[in-house]
């Protein structure tokens, strides 16, 4: 079924389809899809992916029967179960959580700068069927854990979430994706950090082989705010993690980290685009991958330093270990600098595991497989030991042990 047919058949179940402005906008998007008008040259949303799976899809969405639950189980700590991209409304003096409503179309309908030429963001804009808004109120320090659950096979979730951290607030957000069904989740997170706020965003991804997870996030940071993102991808299905970050006011910071563990024929596509638009801002990116069998990964990174963004610090680093001759990792870190007083660097090292290190460890009596596993663990040791949440650290370690048990 074509994208147009899918849309016309299901538009009643898609948000904002009665709104005239949005209707016009979607017609333009459909026109792009139907006439194959994507600029394919250097289009990172189309690289290293079998697009056929995402063009000839059958739209299917089920409104969850059971209301999702929010537990205020301890002070300043909340648990959200998001079912098929929806959750319950909740409000207290610290946070406010609301499902998407038709009246929210101004907040949710257009994806402006990030939509441009990104195939999956355009799909998300077209078929939006779920999502929520979370506001952390001024000067509150909050922890939220979101379990993302998909209830049925063959669902197509097009979800958009808005996060707003008001002045002086802090949010520790842990998102878990552990779905075992044949579905596709296309999720767009739009994150606004007001002055002096902070969001520590952890994403743990561990889906089954037939579950496609496409996550795009967009953060904008005002003065003295910080966005930290850490992604741990253990999924056996396709995962795309794209992040767009805008440092719009002075002394704001974006720290992005991604670690992925791939095997079999799995693919992980990663992209970052960080715009330094004010002075004294800092961005740091570390992406590390371990690839076995015939798995593939990409890391496209672009740090743009505007001419007003003096005293910028922007660092990019990607590293990969290829455990098989048939695994591949394509890395392309780029810096575009238009200011003259900056500290920026980029680097990338990808290769097989260090044979000299293996020999050294084996010469002390360790088996080859034990030496390989210890070297894989050491490769990501710095990132894993920096996790300050004990429960999450244990969870990641457990998943790492499971991954290592398959390394031969």
């Amino acid at each position, binding site marked *: 079924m074509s994208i147009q047919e899918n849309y016309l058949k299901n538009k009643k179940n898609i948000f904002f389809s009665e709104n005239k402005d949005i209707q016009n906008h979607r017609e333009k998007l459909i026109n792009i899809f139907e006439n194959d008008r994507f600029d394919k040259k250097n289009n990172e949303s189309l690289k290293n992916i079998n697009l056929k799976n995402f063009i000839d899809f059958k739209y299917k969405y089920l409104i969850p029967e059971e209301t999702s639950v929010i537990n205020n189980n301890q002070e300043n700590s909340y648990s959200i179960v998001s079912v098929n991209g929806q959750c319950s409304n909740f409000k207290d003096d610290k946070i406010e959580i609301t499902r998407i409503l038709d009246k929210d179309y101004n907040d949710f309908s257009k994806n402006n700068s990030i939509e441009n030429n990104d195939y999956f963001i355009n799909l998300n804009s077209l078929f939006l069927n779920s999502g929520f808004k979370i506001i952390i109120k001024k000067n509150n320090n909050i922890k939220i854990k979101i379990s993302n659950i998909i209830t049925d096979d063959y669902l197509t979730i097009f979800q958009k979430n808005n996060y707003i951290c008001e002045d002086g607030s802090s949010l520790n957000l842990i998102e878990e994706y552990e779905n075992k069904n044949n579905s596709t989740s296309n999720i767009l997170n739009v994150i606004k950090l007001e002055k002096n706020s902070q969001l520590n965003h952890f994403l743990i991804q561990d889906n089954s082989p037939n579950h496609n997870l496409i996550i795009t996030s967009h953060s904008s940071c005002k003065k003295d705010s910080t966005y930290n993102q850490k992604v741990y991808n253990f999924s056996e299905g396709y995962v795309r993690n794209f992040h767009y970050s805008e440092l719009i006011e002075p002394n704001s910071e974006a720290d992005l980290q991604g670690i992925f563990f791939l095997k079999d024929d799995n693919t992980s596509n990663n992209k970052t685009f960080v715009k330094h638009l004010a002075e004294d801002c800092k961005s740091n990116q570390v992406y590390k991958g371990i690839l076995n069998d015939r798995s593939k990964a990409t890391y496209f990174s672009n740090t743009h330093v505007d001419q007003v963004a003096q005293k910028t610090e922007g660092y990019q680093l990607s590293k990969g270990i290829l455990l098989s001759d048939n695994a591949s990792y394509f890395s392309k870190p780029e810096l575009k600098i238009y200011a003259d007083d900056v500290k920026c660097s980029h680097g990338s090292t990808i290769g097989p595991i260090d044979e000299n290190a293996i020999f050294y460890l084996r010469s*002390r*009596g360790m088996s080859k497989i034990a030496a390989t596993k210890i070297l894989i663990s*050491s490769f990501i040791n710095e990132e894993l030991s920096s996790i300050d949440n004990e429960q999450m650290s244990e969870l990641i370690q457990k998943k790492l042990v499971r991954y290592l048990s398959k390394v031969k």
Partner: protein
Amino acid sequence: MFLEINDLSVKIENKNILKGLNLNINKGEVHAIMGPNGCGKSTLANVLAGKEDYEILNGRINFKGNNLFDLNIEERAQEGMFLAFQYPVEIPGVNITPFLHSAINSKRKRMNEEEIDNLSFAKLLKSKASDLGINIDMLKRSVNTGFSGGEKKRYEILQMSILNPDLAILDETDSGLDIDALKIVTDGVNKLKTKDNSYLIITHYQKLLDYIKPDYVHIMVNGSIVKSGGSEIAAEIEKDGFQKFQ
């Protein structure tokens, strides 16, 4: 015979390195091999330890009655062979203490001995480190990472003292060491020397052999041993160089 090397020929990347090398080492003996750069000394050390980059063209090696070529790298270590590396590899993220603990237990397991528990191992490590003048803080660091040349060599000897090998191969352990560090390292080796273990010391210079007295000295040139004798040979080399043997 503890170690018996017969007519060993080895090549790497189409280049013949060892050419019919013979060497016998008995239990409790200290042998030194001296030779010019590129003569094959380190190749011999690596082949004994089991490095897989080399192609064995000919020859046999027996170690404690076993055909060495039947044992892989870790089995050789577990059987009591130890190579102190010329250039110890830095391994960031692998902490020294659990690494050494795992290494000693792999050997004990092969010998059907009881594994050493965490507490006993910590005590053993602390005591051995103290004997070698190694700061306890160093044991909290990653293997060889950020170590000075002297620290790396001292750490190799610490590993040797923990693993207590039957045959220790010291591959240019003196290279890059100042005189004080050389003394600490060689004192450590001398303390470990017993009638039950043997040493194969590879070096360019007599200086190391002033501190570790060898029973036999061999001159290696162009992939084979051309002269063997006592420590007087080392003095001869120090005086005249290797030229006359080439």
